[in-house]
């Protein structure tokens, strides 16, 4: 059988990064090909090359043996390639229907956009993926999961032979994920060639027929799913076998540091209460959208709670701003690194000292030598990889940016560190480093809160786990009860198993 679409020798560089280096990829009709690789392996980049968003530096794309070029996204969709991108690339001010049809809207006889056809088409597509959404709603009024469904409908609105899905399940709930699986089966039955990108092995083994592995922008191998084991794939991804991922913890839990009681917000969360101790890692689990980030950001002074109190070392503290939180010793490593974490455009050392300026300056006047010293100390401890400390943070890879953000907080010498999805978007190597570092911090007596949606990570790292659902704490799990089943049932609102 000949591939519908195949890529040969594709290279793509960005300033400072070689994202793809002579990679190849084949997609077959009626088959799902999984593309696997660590974060930053170049998966999304190949998607963008395939959809005309990026132009490759070298290499060629052939469809049915004929070479094609995609100078724009429109050219790619005309050639029958459509994609659900990793990021939701939609328009808040336009309606659902307009978002689905933008760029290829049905026309009336006069060449004007046919709004009725657009609306009907949108309804049909949404129905097809099991979504009940009003096509006239403006996108800004939708939640993140609904937006993702719109993105899927948009991809399907193009009558394509090749369908690409870049981590399509990341933002979806359990039920929606299953509907997506059904959809993939349907598309497969229609003979479409599907490229499926995911980090979740269970998912890959469930729906993929073939696999292709990338590592550091290079093609590593491909083959039939039936011929490989999970461990084989991991080995191909990282170039070595990974057996013991989580560090052994030396548990040494001390006195309570942070006590939260009756913490509430008008719309986001209600009645949050817990105690955090010295040397403890407290996990927060929940489905995406359960409101964990919101609680943490509120503890960090970003949003104001409507009710409730926090005590630090038995002292009631009202935290109204991030600077007050930092002064109280609470720091927060945000989930959205690019937007909330790193200040791209500023050099590494200035990022590190940003919250510590009062210590590195005298009477408001900066002392550069002190700044460099502080930055050197903490980035060194985290084993940062960078050319120099006055390099722009924006030029670093995601994992190294995360290290800068963590260094920034450690430099303030906090008592409580909140890590929100600390390993999201980080490759397995860096992930282990972050885990080890967390364990070390706890051992030094810091109190750590870790928000994570990854069950292995939560179970592997936490001393105790709090489960949230729809803005409320639904369970607290410790000791023997710390099993995947307990967490999943609690997070999904199912009856607690005995």
């Amino acid at each position, binding site marked *: 059988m000949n591939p519908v679409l195949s890529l040969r020798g594709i290279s793509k560089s960005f300033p400072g990064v070689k994202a793809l280096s002579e990679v190849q990829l084949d997609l077959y009709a009626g088959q799902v090909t999984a593309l696997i690789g660590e974060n930053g392996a170049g998966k999304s980049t190949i998607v963008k090359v395939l959809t005309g968003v990026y132009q490759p530096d070298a290499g060629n794309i052939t469809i049915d043996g004929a070479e094609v070029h995609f100078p724009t996204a429109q050219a790619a969709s005309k050639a029958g390639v459509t994609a659900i991108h990793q990021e939701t690339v939609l328009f808040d001010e336009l309606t659902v229907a307009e978002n689905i049809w933008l760029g290829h809207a049905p026309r009336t006889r006069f060449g004007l956009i046919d709004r009725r056809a657009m609306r009907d088409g949108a309804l049909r597509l949404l129905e097809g993926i099991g979504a009940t959404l009003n096509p006239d709603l403006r996108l800004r009024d939708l939640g993140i999961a609904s937006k993702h469904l719109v993105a899927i409908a948009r991809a399907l609105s193009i009558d394509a032979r090749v369908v690409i899905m870049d981590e399509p399940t990341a933002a979806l709930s359990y039920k929606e994920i299953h509907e997506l699986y059904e959809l993939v089966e349907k598309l497969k039955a229609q003979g479409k060639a599907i490229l499926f990108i995911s980090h979740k092995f269970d998912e890959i083994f469930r729906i993929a027929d073939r696999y292709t592995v990338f590592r550091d922008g290079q093609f590593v191998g491909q083959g039939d799913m039936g011929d490989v084991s999970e461990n084989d794939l991991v080995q191909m991804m990282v170039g070595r076998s990974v057996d013991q991922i989580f560090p052994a913890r030396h548990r040494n839990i001390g006195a309570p540091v942070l006590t939260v009681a009756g913490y509430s917000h008008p719309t986001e969360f209600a009645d949050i209460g817990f105690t955090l101790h010295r040397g403890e890692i407290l996990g927060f689990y929940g489905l995406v959208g359960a409101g964990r980030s919101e609680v943490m950001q509120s503890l960090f002074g970003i949003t104001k709670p409507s009710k409730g109190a926090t005590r630090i070392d038995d002292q009631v503290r009202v935290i109204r701003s991030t600077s007050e939180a*930092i002064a109280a010793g609470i720091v927060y490593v945000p989930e959205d690194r690019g937007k909330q974490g790193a200040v791209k*455009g*500023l050099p590494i050392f*200035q990022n590190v000292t940003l919250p510590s300026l009062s210590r590195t300056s005298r009477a408001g006047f*900066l002392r550069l030598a002190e700044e460099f010293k502080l930055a050197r100390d903490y980035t*060194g401890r985290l084993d940062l*990889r960078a050319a120099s400390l006055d390099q722009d943070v924006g030029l670093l890879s995601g994992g190294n940016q995360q290290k800068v953000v963590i260094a920034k907080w450690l430099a303030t010498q906090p008592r409580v560190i909140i890590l929100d999805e600390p390993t999201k978007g980080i490759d397995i190597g860096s992930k282990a480093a972050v885990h*080890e570092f967390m364990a070390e911090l706890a051992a030094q007596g810091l109190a750590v809160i870790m928000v994570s949606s990854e069950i292995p990570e939560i179970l592997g790292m936490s001393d105790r786990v709090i489960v949230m659902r729809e803005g409320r704490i639904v369970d607290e799990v410790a000791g023997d009860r710390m099993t995947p089943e307990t967490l999943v049932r609690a997070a999904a609102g199912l009856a607690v198993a005995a």
Partner: protein
Amino acid sequence: MTPHHRIIPDRLQSPATRALRSWEAILVAVAIAVFVTNSFASPYFLNVWNLSDATFNFTEKALIAFAMAMLIIAGDIDLSVASIIALSSTAMGVAMAAGADTPVLVLIGIGTGLLCGAINGALVAGLGLPSIVVTIGTMSLFRGVAYIILGDKAFTGYPASFKFFGQGYVWWVISFELALFAAMAVVYYVLLHRTSFGRAVFAIGNNATAAQFSGIRVARVRFILFLLTGVMSGIAAVCLTSRLGSTRPSIATGWELEIVTMVVLGGVSILGGAGSVAGVFLAALIMGMVTFGFGLLNVPGIVMSIFLGVLLIVVIALPRLLRRG
């Protein structure tokens, strides 16, 4: 834990190399070129008194440009500055008519600027409105109030001691305005590049959300920046009023755009996050010398403004053209 850390060097380029490759280096070259051209083009150019007179062309605008640069670096803009001058000047006129003395006049001028800055700051930093729109509004509002107060009248007859700010000399050919300009250049250099406040300004301009997440009081910094442009406009109003010896609601019309031009020419990114006081200082000198040079050649003002328009676009476009080779 980790066996050996790689040592990351502090810098790859020495500060001197960096300075040589900077935007300011280009501006210095342009400034020298303009100076030399002018010296050849007009026999009257190289005369200390003439040069001293010429500085009045830009000192008041440059005072505001320093504060505006910080504001633009932080990602905001204030188009109401010229109107603040008009309102401050009018307020001083009212006070003078009521018999106030020079120190009181100065206080009132600066105080009015502060108040206007506070209004802008409250609307932008407090309510979170876009600064460009807010200040287009207050631009009409502030000057409008000046018109309501003054109408077709003018205030004249400022006390003799008040003349010092716009017509007085500190030492030999160094006018008060020139000295103030130089002093403010130093003050703003230190404020922007040598204090944690300045650092916060850069952080906000590059990523306000991340700055807030790093414990910077973003709203407060932005508010203070509006106060600063307000105060500098107030100070400029004192100088200008003193120099003109009178107040009309129409004074300083159109200055806001000249000031923004000066700031952008100085290498401040209009999108925020980058820029330097040295650049603005040099841009002020260049614009002053160009204006004066053309003036000596009796080139009509409007031709001069074409030149500045072209200069603005070319200076911004050139590096972009070169970069793409």
